């Protein structure tokens, strides 16, 4: 018999293999459309995985994660915009077309934003935390809605910024797909190391019982803030990839419903599993894409499916394959 641990491992390998082969199969089948579609899915999977780090592992229900996604996206858009206009951001920061500069810059800015939002938000917990992260994200949203220099709520269209390291052409659908796929694998690997490390234990301990953690001698706030900042940075990277993919960015990327989508992906796939959010992103975005073909009231179908999953597979689609962990209720 195959144990449930092996079952989940096989499932992950199959899923990753399928994603690795997708551009080849799509090209042969003449359905290139799917390459861009799935690249978008993988980008959101990266964002969902970063959210899982704080939501699934850390128990921090942030309803503002899209702000970090959006900040990262705007960093790339603004840098490329200034590079093509040959002007400077705030009069002194030059733009750049190079993703190897723009993407890390996006991570840095999103990390800094997450740090400051976390600094205040993590003083609270429970519903207050949900509301305060939402409030901060809305503030960021309205900053960009009203920032006329970068298109306001019409958004900002830009050209260029799609040649990586001087020779990798991200304008090529397949090449860019594999770049995103490589980033995803990197995020999964580093995430896996992180959650098993001492730091990961502390984060999980905070989810289980933060009061006890403090009594054991952990300054929990610092650890949670670090996790929150790291998650923000990775979400910023996803945003950067998104901007590069779309060559267009508007504040809708950081609308609060987008944060909700990310939470749904994590819950749908399985909180605290890392691979779950990848599954969740695939399932969520395919349903979002194809259910409307059957009915314009697709959300009437989608809603009950979500409810059923939450009721019957409390650890999501992926968690369902994992060995049961007692005591932890929904996750573990």
């Amino acid at each position: 018999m195959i144990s449930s641990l092996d079952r989940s491992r096989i499932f992950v390998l199959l899923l990753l293999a399928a994603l690795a082969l997708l551009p080849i199969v799509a090209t042969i089948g003449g359905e290139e459309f799917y390459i861009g579609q799935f690249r978008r899915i993988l980008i959101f999977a990266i964002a969902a995985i970063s959210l899982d780090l704080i939501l699934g592992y850390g128990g921090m229900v942030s309803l503002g994660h899209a702000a970090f996604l959006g900040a990262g996206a705007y960093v790339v858009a603004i840098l490329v915009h200034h590079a093509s206009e040959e002007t400077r951001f705030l009069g002194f920061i030059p733009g750049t077309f190079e993703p190897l500069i723009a993407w890390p810059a996006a991570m840095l800015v999103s990390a800094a934003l997450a740090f400051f939002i976390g600094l205040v938000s993590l003083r609270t917990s429970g519903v207050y935390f949900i509301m305060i992260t939402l409030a901060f994200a809305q503030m960021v949203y309205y900053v960009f809605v009203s920032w006329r220099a970068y298109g306001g709520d019409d958004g900002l269209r830009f050209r260029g910024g799609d040649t990586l390291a001087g020779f990798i052409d991200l304008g090529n659908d397949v090449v860019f797909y594999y770049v995103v796929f490589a980033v995803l694998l990197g995020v999964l690997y580093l995430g896996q190391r992180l959650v098993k490390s001492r730091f990961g234990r502390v984060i999980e301990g905070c989810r289980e019982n933060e009061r006890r953690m403090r009594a054991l001698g952990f300054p929990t706030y610092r650890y949670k803030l670090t996790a929150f900042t790291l998650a923000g940075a990775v979400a910023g990277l996803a945003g950067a990839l998104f901007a590069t993919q779309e060559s267009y960015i508007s504040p809708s990327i950081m609308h609060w419903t987008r944060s909700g989508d990310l939470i749904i992906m994590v819950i749908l796939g399985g909180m605290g599993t890392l691979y779950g959010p990848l599954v969740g992103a695939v399932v969520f975005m395919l349903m979002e894409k194809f259910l409307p073909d059957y009915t314009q009231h697709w959300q009437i179908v989608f809603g009950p499916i979500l409810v059923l999953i939450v009721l019957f597979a409390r650890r999501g689609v992926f968690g369902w394959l994992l060995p049961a962990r007692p005591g932890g209720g929904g996750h573990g």
Partner: protein
Amino acid sequence: MAEPLVEAPLLEARGLIKRFGGIVATDNLSLAVEPGEIHAVIGPNGAGKTTLIAQLSGELRSDAGTIRFAGEDVTDLPVYDRSRRGLARSFQITSVFRAFTALENVALALQAHDSHSFRFWKDASRDPALVEPARRMLEQVGLGARAEIAAAELAHGEQRQLEIAMALATGPRMLLLDEPMAGMGRDEAVRMTAFLRTLKQSETILLIEHDMDVVFALADRITVLVYGRAIASGTPAEIRVNQEVRQAYLGEDEHA
């Protein structure tokens, strides 16, 4: 009579006050715990025992008074800082990490006092610096065979043992035990009493306990709390004959 020179108390609280609205939960309370002793705090329900523990451990900020631990003023230090200085506590309501195994629980407690935990790379479950001492610690409290069991699946008494193993794993200079026998069956309580007796040889303990048999069997000194005030403090023999205590508290209890 010349008193022999004694060491300074390990834990010393002076003039502690804690109010919740109009209720005074801790009323100008002073208390000293000498190194090596088991000091029990008893009192009827609502006497403010758990409030006192919360103040001593740092979960509650006192409205007035000072707390010194191991010669330092810790009055304004947060919980984790006091814990790092060696003031460990167990909880009245079992609060182990239920989704973690017994071993992981103790390893986490060890980790808390092994420098910082901003370590992102190495697998903690394969770290001999955590796993080996954690295993020893579990053997010591009699849970050696249960190391790989999730805490949620341990029997109540075992969870209480695990709770104390975790407090011990932090390498404390002093334990604050909040009703370690709470909810235990007779047999489990007897075993726990025996275990606390062996602990007594190496640890300083402040014990809050309802079970009078346990308190009088273990404690070197007893402080009696009524409405947040210490009405008496002394050896078990002194407390037994103290009139005020009898009136206020032991009078209602057949045991005494």
